[in-house]
């Protein structure tokens, strides 16, 4: 266990960015309009690094970019040459919160362990060093991570816990251990015997996930879906900010000359018609009711059956970002209220 003094936080990040491998350091910072998001440290040296509270956008974009080239193809005289595009970006993400770490663990389950591994995602996961910050209390009124067990950091390389004097630093993997032993970084840290306190807080937004898969299966035709979905705008904001939403579609982007055509993997949203469009123009999940039900059931029911994990990590971003105040926790509560009636 090491101690990082408060005034040395910036030196620590500077030391991280001066690594031999020239890994880019990603930190949470604030835009002028107040949005907290992740960006490169080099480009934003003058900005304050936000270490408290939830970020408005998760660092999902560094693992699942909005648009990514997975292959390109060229037409020569009698054949088509297809080239796979593999990714080898390397990064350090500083300040990732426990909810987003848990979302990554869920994505690993789906995109690496379940059936067909996503090569690019796997490479990015392997090439990214994660430096987490523990949450010591509920960060806002809409998060409900403590009821899902996602308030505790898992799968990090290094983890920081805030205390009075600064931060307690502990390693979570060999990569993290090696990083902390490097000269430039070791200099800034002090050895200490202190241990971080057990994390135990309760969020204000209560959710009961006991036997939730049975509840949702039983209430598939509940009237709650229609009541809540009536005002949905299909704006896709909720799926965009969700740290564990991974649905995508694949399209071919053609060039003017048969050369340089690209196959792109783009993030999709279950709130769009195109998500369930088949046979050119038949949309099998057209109503708002069915779309919202898909979103909620994927979070709490399908993922549990298929991947043995609840997809939702309880960050509450989808609640805060919804212009029409659709609240995933309220929906579950309402269904429980109506259950059996």
């Amino acid at each position, binding site marked *: 266990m090491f101690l990082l003094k408060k005034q040395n936080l910036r030196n620590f990040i500077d030391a991280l960015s001066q690594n031999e491998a020239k890994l880019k350091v990603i930190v949470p910072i604030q*835009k002028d*309009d*107040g*949005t907290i*998001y992740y960006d490169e440290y080099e480009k934003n040296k003058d900005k304050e690094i936000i270490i408290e509270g939830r970020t*408005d*956008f998760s660092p999902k974009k560094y693992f699942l970019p*909005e648009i990514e080239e997975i292959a390109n193809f060229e037409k020569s005289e009698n054949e088509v040459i297809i080239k796979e595009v593999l990714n080898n970006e390397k990064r350090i993400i500083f300040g990732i919160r426990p909810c987003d770490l848990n979302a990554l663990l869920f994505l690993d389950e789906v995109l690496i362990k379940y059936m067909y591994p996503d090569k690019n995602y796997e490479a990015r996961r392997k090439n990214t060093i994660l430096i987490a910050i523990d949450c010591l209390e509920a960060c806002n009124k809409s998060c409900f991570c403590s009821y899902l067990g996602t308030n505790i950091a898992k799968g990090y390389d290094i983890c920081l816990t805030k205390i009075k004097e600064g931060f307690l630093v502990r390693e979570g993997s060999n990569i993290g251990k090696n990083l902390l032993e490097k000269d430039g970084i070791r200099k800034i840290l002090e050895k200490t015997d202190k241990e971080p306190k057990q994390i135990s807080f309760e969020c204000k937004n209560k959710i009961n996930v006991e036997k939730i898969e049975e509840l949702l299966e039983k209430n598939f035709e509940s009237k709650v879906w229609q009541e809540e979905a*009536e*005002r*949905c*705008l*299909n*704006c*896709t*904001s909720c799926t*965009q*900010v969700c740290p564990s939403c991974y649905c995508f579609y694949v399209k071919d*982007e*053609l*060039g*003017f*000359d048969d050369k340089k055509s690209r196959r792109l993997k783009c993030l999709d*949203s279950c709130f*769009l*018609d*195109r998500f369930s469009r088949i046979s050119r123009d038949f949309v099998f999940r057209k109503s*708002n009711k069915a779309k919202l039900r898909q979103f909620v059931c994927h979070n709490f029911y399908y993922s549990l059956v298929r991947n043995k994990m609840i997809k939702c990590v309880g960050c509450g971003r989808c609640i*805060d*970002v919804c*212009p*029409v105040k659709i609240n995933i926790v309220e929906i579950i509560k309402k269904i429980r209220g109506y259950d059996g009636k």
Partner: protein
Amino acid sequence: MKEKLKIGIFSFTSCEGCELTIFENSEEFTKMLNYVDIVNSRLIKEKNPEVNLDIAIVEGSIMSKKEAEELVKIRERSKILISLGTCAGSGCVQALRNFFSDRLKKKIIKEAQTEAFEKVKALDEIVKVDYYARGCPIDADDFYRIIKLIINNQIPRRYDVAVCKECKENENSCLLIKGIPCLGPVAYGGCKAICVTKGSYCAACRGVIRNSNVDSLRNVLKDRCKLSDKEINELFQQYNNVRGVREIKKLIKVKEQLRQDLYA
């Protein structure tokens, strides 16, 4: 090598900014010239013969019977018709006239524009439009996407994704939640949410998505932004003037009526 496609670019009542956007992206434009012949364009060509076309690209809204007749002629001699920009798609600023008082309308139409329609019309109120390149002005990437698909014998799909998706891609915080009016949730995307990203609001210049939940957005504008019904209408009218919002069904009738009028 395949035979080159014949393209005509036509302008009705508009600023011709969209046409300029096509030429502005010189890299894509020169590549496109390997596959198409531009046979008709008032902006870049001296001679503009009336020949049969593979693709007619039409910008501008229809103000008068003369323009409407010309548009019908263009439609008759082209295989595909692409509506270019907001003027052609939903009226844009010149169609703000549709909401003038009757007295003012009468004065303008009777005394100044004797040939003019009482209401400014979009292209699809008069002829069949195959594909739409939307925006005021259009997004060049969006336009070339459509052209590339047509050249490669594919069918361009309607991009019915709200501006919000791209807005969240750019990691903006939601204006509606802050209480600032924005039409992003019901507006056609494809513009890379440029207005909101640069610190403005979305005025739905690309049109209102078919079957989108406009009623719900009206409630949000009332509750969160404290707008009156009249103000909400004004907001929608800035770019979407020809059909109010959601009058597609009525529109088909109008189209047929007008076609009959023209051929009578």
